[in-house]
């Protein structure tokens, strides 16, 4: 069964089209990822699927229910971790979790057990009775995720869930999510900026300017990049870029601190290139393609370009709030 089905979905904010006629479906038990730069329309899509926003045109079904016509049934089928914090900072961590469990109708016996479980995963067990407003950004994020994993819905939406968290925590959370998927058959709908996180997905949709530009498994997507990736830099990257195109006929791409080309056989290509460009190249590296390269190829942009360091995003996200304190 298709647990999410989206047909010709369009969302306009006044005149601005945030989601531009997208189509996709997600199978039960799948981990489905949305990958895209800032403003691509990822969160907007999630808000429509979770009945927080009305759509402009098209159809969207969740667990077989029309998101426009049966919002109550849709809400009973989903769980969410929003991109921005939705905790009540004047309550304790435990109160936040218990209220969530009550809103979702989990019996006390069950939620008490799960509470311990999720708290351990996010390592907040010893802080349960502390007011959330005294938490650090990362701790709030962890609590938010813990809360999102308390009940076992049909579909869990995770909107950039682990931004600002360290690798260890991220992998523990992912372990738990995969386990939920196996034991409870939960479907995961994820948006992310992290490439390693995207690798957790069964399938990925790359979205840019409100349109899906590619949708496939991570492996298949990577095949779109034909060979090895060679990244290089010179004192004048613009000049290097032009020479690669004009003198070598290569499909070069400007990236943040250099120039990048795709080539079938990197190991032999590099010595040739260096001998033909004496004193030009100051740095060169070779690697296998990643999702970021696919992204670059499809959208002409690097994902990481837009990605501040995780901590900075966290700060930007929380900065708006601190004014009220």
């Amino acid at each position: 069964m298709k647990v999410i089905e989206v047909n010709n979905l369009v969302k306009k904010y006044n005149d601005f089209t945030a989601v531009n006629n997208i189509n996709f479906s997600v199978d039960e038990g799948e981990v489905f990822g949305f990958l895209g730069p800032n403003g691509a329309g990822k969160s907007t899509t999630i808000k429509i699927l979770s009945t927080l926003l009305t759509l402009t045109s098209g159809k969207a079904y969740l667990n077989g229910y029309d998101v426009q016509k049966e919002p109550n049934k849709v809400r009973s089928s989903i769980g969410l971790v929003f991109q921005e914090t939705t905790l009540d900072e004047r309550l304790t961590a435990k109160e936040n979790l218990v209220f969530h469990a009550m809103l979702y109708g989990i019996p006390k016996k069950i939620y008490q057990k799960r509470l311990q479980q999720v708290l351990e995963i996010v390592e907040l067990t010893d802080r349960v009775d502390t007011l959330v407003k005294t938490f650090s950004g990362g701790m709030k994020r962890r609590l938010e995720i813990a809360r999102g994993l308390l009940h076992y819905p049909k579909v869990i939406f995770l909107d950039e869930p682990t931004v600002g968290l360290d690798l260890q925590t991220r992998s523990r959370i992912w372990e738990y999510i995969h386990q939920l998927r196996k034991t409870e058959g939960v479907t995961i709908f994820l948006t992310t900026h992290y490439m390693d996180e995207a690798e957790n997905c069964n399938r990925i949709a790359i979205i840019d300017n409100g349109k899906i530009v590619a949708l496939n498994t991570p492996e298949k997507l990577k095949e779109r990049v034909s060979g090895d990736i060679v990244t290089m830099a010179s004192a004048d990257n613009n000049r290097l870029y032009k020479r690669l195109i004009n003198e070598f006929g290569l499909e070069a791409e400007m990236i943040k601190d250099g120039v990048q080309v795709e080539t079938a056989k990197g190991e032999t290509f590099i010595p040739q290139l260096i001998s033909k460009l004496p004193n030009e190249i100051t740095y060169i590296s070779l690697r296998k393609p990643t999702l970021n390269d696919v992204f670059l190829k499809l959208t002409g942009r690097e994902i990481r370009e837009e990605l501040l360091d995780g901590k900075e995003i966290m700060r930007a996200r929380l900065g708006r709030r601190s004014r009220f304190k």
Partner: protein
Amino acid sequence: MRAIQGIYVIWLRDIIRFFREKPRIIGMIGQPLLYLTIMGTGLASTLRPVQLPAGFDYIDFMYPGIICMSVLFTSVFSAVSIVWDREFGFLKEVLVAPVPRWSVALGKALGGSTISMIQATILLVIAPFIGLKLTFLALIKLWLILFLISFALTSFGIIIASRMETMQGFQVIMNFIIMPMFFLSGAIFPLKGVPGWMEILMRLDPLTYGVDAIRNIFFAGTPAYESMVTFSLTQDLTVIGVMGVVFIILATWSFNYAK
């Protein structure tokens, strides 16, 4: 079942948060006492706004009005916290939960009413000190009436809050809706004897009937009854009751459609 759970969670959250906000509790007790002493003493000695029989003074007249004022401010303020919840994101957590939206609105209305009732109870405690005797039966009646008033006013606040984008608008609401509601309610000067246009406004102010209902209970069977009370208790209760029903329906409705 889910609905009751939703009402309960929203209500409980408001109560827990209330008891954690010490400044709010202090303000809640301090403000009406301040009004009562300053305005009560000042106005009584200079203006003589009401003709009262011997043994009654202006403070007696104003006291029911001050209770209503406190209930008005507390109820509206509780309801308007929805705007904060929207700004801080928590509202989203509630809006995607599988509880009906009306139960959220109702839980909020009950939460605000409960806090207002705490406020009103504190104020009722001082009644004997300003020379007003209350029987147990009168106290129960007052509680019921005050609950109705609080419920209607919190619902009214929810209607306002669901149309407000940010807290900035609250000042405007305060100055142009809430304060006039208080001044026109007959809390500090009586409806009798004001110019005709103002009497119309006062009769339109729903709070007028709340203040009048409380005076009805306080002064029933006393020589001051005639000068204190404008409408019959039945009239007052009808208006308050209708108001409660209409406001909670509108509140639920506007909450459902506020994005």
